[in-house]
């Protein structure tokens, strides 16, 4: 009897072990990106842009070209790459501290210019690398290193909804929010990331995928408990769904 391979590491994902904490969602999201690149067969002309944050070393984990931008400036660096090498597939991979805090101007204007690139935004409501400080996406009442009594809306404002904000702009063609809290949602996330890269390959324009993710270490939870916490607390604040789909890729798929 022969055995057929059902699942293994995608070719675009390098053999380097991830430096992420046990249970971190970054590993799965990296895999989904690598699988999308492999399925579209564009690895030879893909250039990724890593952020500052936990995923700062993302260039170690992919078998295609990678760049690393200053904090929050990944969309600006990606704009430069895409405009000088328009034949390449360019994406940024950013966290919430990078994209929603210091890099808000860059992402909004890259989206508004409708740059033909893909943005993968990992939102786990906390700063991971620096040790669990409050992020713009932290929930009201959420305890972090810099909000030990819980986030107070009176002084720290409300969690920022990047997908909804970007969907109000004219230029973006695809804005969606997904999560990977279970395998069904994980498969939807995979499809969303694939759609976002497909749109870029077809030259359609700016695609934005927000992935609601966990940070077990800084949330102080076990990975499986963190996914439960995400489902109960984060998803009501950050509802899943597609906010903009100009070319109807989701229905076509």
């Amino acid at each position, binding site marked *: 009897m022969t055995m057929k391979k*059902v699942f293994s590491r995608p070719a675009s994902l390098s053999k380097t072990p991830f430096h992420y904490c046990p249970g971190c969602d970054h590993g799965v999201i990296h895999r989904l990106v690598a699988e999308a690149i492999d399925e579209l067969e564009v690895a030879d002309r893909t250039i990724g842009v890593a952020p500052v944050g936990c995923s700062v070393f993302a260039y170690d984990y992919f078998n295609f070209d990678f760049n690393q931008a200053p904090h929050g400036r990944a969309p600006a660096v990606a704009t430069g790459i895409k405009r000088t090498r328009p034949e390449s597939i360019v994406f940024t991979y950013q966290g919430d501290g990078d994209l929603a805090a210091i890099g808000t101007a860059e992402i909004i204007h890259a989206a508004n210019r409708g740059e033909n690139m893909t943005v993968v935004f990992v939102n786990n409501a906390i700063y991971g690398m620096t040790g669990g400080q409050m992020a713009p996406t932290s929930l009201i009442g959420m305890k972090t290193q810099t909000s030990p009594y819980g986030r107070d809306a009176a002084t720290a404002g409300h969690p920022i909804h990047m997908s909804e904000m970007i969907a109000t702009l004219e230029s973006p063609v695809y804005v969606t929010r997904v999560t990977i809290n279970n395998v069904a949602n994980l498969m939807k996330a995979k499809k969303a990331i694939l759609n976002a890269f497909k749109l870029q390959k077809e030259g359609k324009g700016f695609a934005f995928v927000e992935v609601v993710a966990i940070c077990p270490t800084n949330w102080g939870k076990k990975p499986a408990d963190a996914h439960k916490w995400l489902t109960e607390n984060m998803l009501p604040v950050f509802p899943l769904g597609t906010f903009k789909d100009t070319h109807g890729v989701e229905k076509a798929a």
Partner: protein
Amino acid sequence: MSKWVINESLCKGCGLCIARCPLKILAYADHLTPKGVYPAAITDESKCTSCAICARSCPEVAIEIYKEEK
């Protein structure tokens, strides 16, 4: 050849595969890896349907799944 193959050197013992296996046939092994974690292990491979839920959940992409071809 086995259906469920893990690269133990990548496993960090997060337990997501164990929590999500629909047949509950995954558990922590009773030996330590050089990294100092108890890796995931399969307890009854004859029950495994090669659904790959464990492999898709694995943040380290440490699991490979094979299926018998008839």
